[in-house]
């Protein structure tokens, strides 16, 4: 960590003014969440890396177009998500049936969320792992726009209004995409849902608590609780 205490907007302004390191500092600050969005939107490591790189380059080039009417993170998410969707629309993606490989990234909590106990039952972990694979495989079958909306709203926990800004569409459209996507997932995930109906304790963790509505401020965002 560089320890740079400049706000996101200050860093972006510095980049536009010619500070050659400012954009890198800004992007590294938010890179993990942007990677998570790219990975879940694209469905595999390689396509996510390509999409994230495309988005980063586009944001670097178009920084002067940022007007400050939304948070810098919102703007970065918009650029990255659009770059990912551009790749999907252009057909420059691998087959989305590939299983998510992040479940194999050991040692980083990919299989164990923050609210799991340290002594997780291996059988429980395996079951959870399998459930996640099933969910991600089902998510990969959705149209890209629905997938992106669900990733941002239900996985990342962003408010619908902010996701609307990210996707550059009305909030009603975000809600509609989420609703249709969830309905389709409910069909695809029926066995999981039926199992959960039989065992109410096995429904997965709660939805992340959405953060407070975002002002165009510069405070860095943390993941939903």
């Amino acid at each position, binding site marked *: 960590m560089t320890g740079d205490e400049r706000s996101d907007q200050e860093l972006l302004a510095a980049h536009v003014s010619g500070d050659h390191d400012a954009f890198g500092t800004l992007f590294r600050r938010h890179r993990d969440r942007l990677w998570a969005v790219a990975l879940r939107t694209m469905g595999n490591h390689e396509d996510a890396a390509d999409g994230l790189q495309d988005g*980063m380059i586009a944001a670097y080039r178009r920084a002067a177009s940022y007007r400050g009417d939304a948070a810098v993170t919102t703007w970065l998410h918009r650029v990255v998500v659009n770059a990912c969707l551009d790749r999907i629309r252009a057909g420059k993606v691998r087959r989305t049936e590939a299983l998510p490989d992040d479940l194999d990234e050991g040692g980083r909590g990919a299989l164990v969320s923050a609210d799991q106990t340290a002594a997780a039952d291996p059988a429980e972990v395996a079951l959870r792992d399998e459930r996640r694979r099933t969910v991600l495989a089902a998510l990969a079958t959705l149209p890209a726009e629905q997938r992106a909306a669900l990733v941002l709203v239900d996985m990342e926990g962003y408010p619908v209004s902010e996701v609307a800004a990210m996707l550059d569409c009305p909030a009603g459209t975000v809600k509609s995409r989420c609703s249709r996507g969830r309905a389709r997932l409910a069909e695809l995930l029926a066995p999981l849902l039926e199992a959960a109906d039989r065992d109410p304790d096995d429904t997965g963790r709660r939805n992340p608590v959405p953060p407070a509505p975002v002002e165009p401020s510069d405070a860095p965002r943390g993941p939903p609780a």
Partner: protein
Amino acid sequence: MTGPDPAPHEDQVRRLLADARHDAPVPEDVADRLDAVLADLAREERPRAVTDLAAARRRRARIRTVLVAAAAVVLVGFGISRVDLSGSSSDSSSAGSAADSSAAQENSAAAPSAPPDADLPQGALAAPVRLTSGRLEQQVRRLVDTTQAFASGTAGDTQSRAEDSSAACGDPSGPGTPIVATYDGAPAVLVLRPRAGGVQVADVYLCGERTPVRSVTVPVG
């Protein structure tokens, strides 16, 4: 999400999605790759030495000559009287000839009064490059591949074409090579940004707009 009648199991679906959230940091290989691209981008932006300006002017003059020749090759090679990147050629790799023929129809219908061509360019392609929203990426890729002289797209080139694009459409911001174009029939400027990391960003500005209406990224090299 609230609503008058949530679908059955909607909350459960949302919980399953939340549980599938990716929590790990960006992998090292991806981080290294992004850092390398950022370093390339930063290196490009550094100001040139004063002694390079004369070389830059000579290079712009050479590129202008190459563009004239390249445009002539494009016009002769396609056997058309105006530059048309609508994708009606047979080498399209996108899905279906139906898409190509419909795009060709769309283009011919959209611009029946497109300016007659045949004047060779004096600093850029003579006729506006025709771009369509449905095939923008393919069109940009074809343009980049056909006129390799555009691929460098350095900041110095922007100045040499400023009078062409600004006379047509205003002056988009940022480094890159502006190309007079139409976008879905509307006057526009296509700006090819300096390439980096094996890709080139292209921004489409409608005349009078200060922000791009569309942006695509294509691989180069």
